[in-house]
């Protein structure tokens, strides 16, 4: 698994760790029952505070992605990727609902909205 910390992104370091572990779970890079790197080793290697890594791992556990087993390490839970997908779906639905509301206010037809979506998707694929 790749973990890289940026000092200038403005995103807190614990958040960066969380995001990267989540995407590793999503992409299958981290499989069910695999262990995360030991907390203290990771802190040493990334030259960051032990408490920062602890916070990232604790929050990942609270969100249901991993389970911390005392003395044995932090395990990836099986439903991690489904959970993440669920969260993402929820986010997509919310954003789309917002777009639909805005389209109504702007008096945009359903067709025009679909068209706009296709254009934006094309632009994204080009990137």
């Amino acid at each position, binding site marked *: 698994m790749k973990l890289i910390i940026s000092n200038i992104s403005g995103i807190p370091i614990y958040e960066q760790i969380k995001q990267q572990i989540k995407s590793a779970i999503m992409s299958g890079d981290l499989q069910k029952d695999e262990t995360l790197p030991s907390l203290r080793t990771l*802190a040493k290697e990334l*030259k960051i505070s032990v408490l920062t890594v602890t916070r990232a791992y604790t929050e990942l556990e609270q969100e249901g992605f991993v389970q911390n087993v005392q003395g044995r390490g932090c395990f990836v839970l099986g439903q991690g990727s489904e959970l993440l997908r669920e969260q993402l779906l929820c986010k997509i639905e919310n954003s789309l609902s917002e777009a639909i509301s805005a389209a109504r206010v702007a008096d945009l037809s359903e067709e025009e909205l679909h068209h706009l979506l296709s254009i934006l998707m094309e632009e994204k694929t080009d990137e």
Partner: protein
Amino acid sequence: MNDYLEVKNLSKSFEGFRLHDITFTLPKGYIMGLIGPNGSGKTTTIKLILNMLKRTSGEVKILGFDNIANEQEAKRNLGVVFDSNYFSDEWKISQVEKSVSAFYENWNTQKFSETLKKFHIQPSKKVKELSKGMQMKLMLACAFSYDAKLLILDEPTSGLDPVSRDELLHILSEYIEDGEHSVLFSTHLTRDLERAADYITYIRYGELFFSGGKDEFLDLFRIVKGGREELTADLSKKMLGIRNFSTGFEALVKTEDLKQYAHLNAEPATIDDIVVFTSKRGEPYE
């Protein structure tokens, strides 16, 4: 034993300076940075912990042992690194080992020579032939050879080049990796702490300003920036420190007050920002 260092209501009065009511705790397995501008009481605090100065009042416990009543037990577990080394310049490394090891029953000769090798210190050299960074590593090698549980370093990075500073931080994170060792580290080069420290204790003008988790400390403050006309008298009263310049201003504010500054650009503060802005005694500086 979960707290390796407990400092409670520590006070000391000198002519013209007073260290007042300092309280903090360093748990086992972590690095704590002791910060503050020069003359704020960092070294006095460390000297009081080491019983090199007599405290006026308060309490210090090192691995549970009182630093005065049980000084021997307390110091058996303690390693100390000062800005300048405390060995005789003319000593060879072997003489350093001989004199230091005499004080520690559990001195491990093999560990000492392994550590020297790891730090690239030639045992045949004299202390004065070592660079500043090497002398510091020699002090660390000694502490590791009697398995000191708590390391106290006073301004260890101030005379070091960036490479040696990075090495030192790496050595310290390795030292605490097993969760059985702790480090108290005073410095005014706060960049060194920005990443590696777990806890921050900030002493300002002899008083404790903050002691707790580093991330928590950084979360308490934000920097806001704006044009001069955006700085009203009402707002400036609430700010912890302001720097005015011809095209605008920068100020340190409490994160909890951020709503009142919604019209300004806010960004995270560094440890340096916090120390600089809070050390001006409220006066704007030019």
